[in-house]
């Protein structure tokens, strides 16, 4: 380190005196900051006049495209000239943290929230409760799976907007070469048998591909299997973990078995949904589960080599049926918003059946009646019939305020099991032990 001339202190070392001075400065800063413990600058929101500027936070990933949302917003402003909306787009990975960081400042009036966040955002009062504003007609008009998206302990914290679950996609050409009938893929046993046939006949080295990277996507795939094997994340009273027994364990054992039998591509452990979409579109996988957006992507001749050879099927059933994972998202009004009235109008507009029907190409509507709307069906001839069946039964990831922590624990332990570093039972027991204090 440097040493200006003329001092006799040893070079580059903190003397005791300097340490003392530094800590005095730090203590001073502490006292200064301690005046408001976690405080300073929290903005209480307000209803506002119902006019003026609002800011909305969206993601740029699957579902509605940025262009779709900008068009919807333009239409809204035409109908409501006194409200100006400024939409903002961030990656899904940054969405949660952006909402949290912006909450005390009230930067955004409307935020898009994932189905796993209402418990957290609701109890921490980051978003407002809207139970009183939701008309009764909505509650009967929306699909059951959608309705729970923004609900926690009987209260609504937003309005469902993106309704999604994972479907089974199959490459019919590869299946045909192995003599597998897509109809047999209605159960996970059928999928396993098909995968073995594909492997034995050397049609493809690894028939199955999943989104098993250590992120939320892994839990989505796991959840889908937990549902099929009749497992539960939490005990019925919601105060104990239950994923380490019964169906929860069977689901992980199933995942591990497909790896052990070399039916699942080991690269699944570094893949997220978009990697799955890419490999599948290149013909590198025979079967995969993924969100609705893969339907149009895999059938797009410009970006896919398997266009026209894609079968979209309901998620396969296990011993306990075949519920799809609830991967929906909702629009919420933030507590920090000073213009909640205008924000609510915007939310109501975007979630209305007319708007959702109009943009059904990239994201299916939340409204039951929409699935009989000719335009919606025509926009998505492949998915709507499957969706109708699938969306009736969805399985939720645990609805608890500390979900993210549980999810992180689970992701790590599930990967431990998938990599063969622990037995599935051991991995889930370890996860359960760590998760226990988080649900109590």
């Amino acid at each position: 380190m440097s040493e200006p001339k003329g001092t006799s202190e040893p070079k580059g070392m903190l003397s005791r005196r300097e340490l003392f001075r530094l800590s005095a400065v730090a203590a001073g800063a502490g006292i200064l900051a301690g005046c408001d413990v976690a405080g300073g600058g929290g903005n209480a929101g307000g209803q506002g006049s119902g006019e003026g500027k609002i800011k909305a936070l969206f993601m740029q990933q699957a579902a509605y495209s940025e262009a779709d949302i900008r068009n919807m917003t333009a239409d809204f402003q035409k109908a409501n000239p006194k409200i100006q909306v400024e939409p903002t787009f961030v990656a899904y990975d940054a969405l949660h943290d952006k909402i949290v960081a912006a909450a005390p400042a009230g930067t955004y009036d409307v935020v898009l929230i994932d189905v796993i966040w209402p418990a957290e955002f609701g109890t921490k009062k980051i978003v407002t409760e809207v139970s009183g504003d939701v008309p009764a007609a909505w509650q009967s008009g929306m699909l059951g799976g959608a309705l729970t998206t923004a609900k926690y302990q009987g209260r609504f914290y937003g309005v469902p907007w993106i309704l999604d679950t994972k479907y089974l996609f199959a490459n019919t050409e590869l299946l045909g070469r192995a003599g597998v009938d897509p109809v047999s893929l209605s159960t996970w046993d059928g999928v396993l048998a098909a995968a073995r046939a594909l492997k034995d006949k050397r049609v493809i080295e690894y028939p199955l591909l999943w989104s098993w990277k250590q992120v939320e996507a892994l839990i989505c795939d796991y959840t889908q299997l937990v549902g099929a094997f009749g497992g539960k994340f939490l005990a019925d009273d919601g105060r104990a973990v239950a994923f380490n027994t019964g169906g929860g364990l069977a689901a992980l054992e199933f995942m591990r078995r497909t790896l052990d039998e070399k039916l699942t591509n080991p690269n699944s452990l570094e893949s997220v949904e978009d990697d799955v979409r890419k490999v599948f579109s290149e013909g590198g996988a025979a079967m995969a589960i993924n969100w609705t957006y893969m339907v149009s992507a895999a059938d797009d001749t410009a970006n896919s080599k398997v266009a026209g050879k894609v079968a979209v099927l309901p998620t396969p059933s296990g011993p306990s049926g075949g519920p799809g994972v609830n991967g929906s998202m909702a629009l919420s009004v933030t507590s920090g918003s000073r213009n909640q009235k205008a924000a609510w109008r915007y939310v109501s507009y975007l979630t209305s059946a007319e708007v959702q029907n109009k943009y059904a190409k990239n994201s299916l509507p939340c409204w039951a009646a929409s699935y009989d709307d000719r335009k919606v069906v025509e926009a998505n001839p492949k998915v709507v019939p499957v969706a109708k069946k699938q969306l009736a039964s969805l399985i939720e990831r645990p609805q608890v305020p500390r979900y993210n922590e549980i999810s992180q624990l689970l992701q790590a332990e599930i990967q431990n099991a998938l990599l063969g570093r622990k037995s599935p039972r051991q991995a889930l027991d370890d996860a359960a032990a760590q998760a226990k204090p988080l649900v109590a």
Partner: protein
Amino acid sequence: MRYRVFIHAAALFASVVILAPFGWLAYSSLVGQSDLLARPLRWWPERVTLDRYREIFSADQGAAALFRDAVVNSFLVASGTVVISLVVGILGGYAVARLRFPLRRTTLLAFLVTYMLPPISLIIPLYLLMARFGLLDTRTGLIVVYCSLATPFTLWTMSNFFATLPVELEEAARVDGCTRLGALVRVILPLARPGIVATGLFAFLLCWDEFLYALIFTSTGNAKTIPVAIAEFTGRNAVDFGLIAAGGVLAALPPVLIALVFQRYLIGGLSTGSLKG
């Protein structure tokens, strides 16, 4: 003779190791999607295209347009930070190098300790402060934050640099009637040019590189910087490797050019600025 062959062979090998990944990035941005995804990989592309660059430069909204804004933002933020942190770093560095005052070393250390704080720990309180002053999602806000990152560094290196310059010249100027500051500007600064340029280069790259603050403090094309745009790019466009590569090439171009232009100052600046003194 054998020595000369050896050093040239070694330099060639090092160059290949350094250039190969770069070359692959540039190549990926220019060839067709099917060439990139072929297995086994073809080494001679079937299709060469500038489409991705065209897309980035012509799109009027979406990721590609954001990317263009981000280059501009990064440039303005980095330049602004360099200018400000250099000016205050020169003033403060001069004081540390040439003047005696109580708590001198403590002051310098206090500056350096701030450099060790992980941004994570400061980000939420900082967010509130910035919200209070209306600095969120503005380039000004980022410049303020980045100045706090770059200034300890500029102050430290400039003080070392000044300490190596002979005092006599300055004194001669003061005998001729210059004030201290006059002497600083007229005598010291011209002599310190390599150090100033090298320090500025460091500060520039520091800003161009910063990710976490930019991720949380910016949200639109008003202020999003290149690292944020690239991270979003890679998250979303897993399908088109070529587009990610093109974004990467464009994001790397400005700092690489600047580093190449100013590299001759770097050795001189580094050797006196941070090593001597």
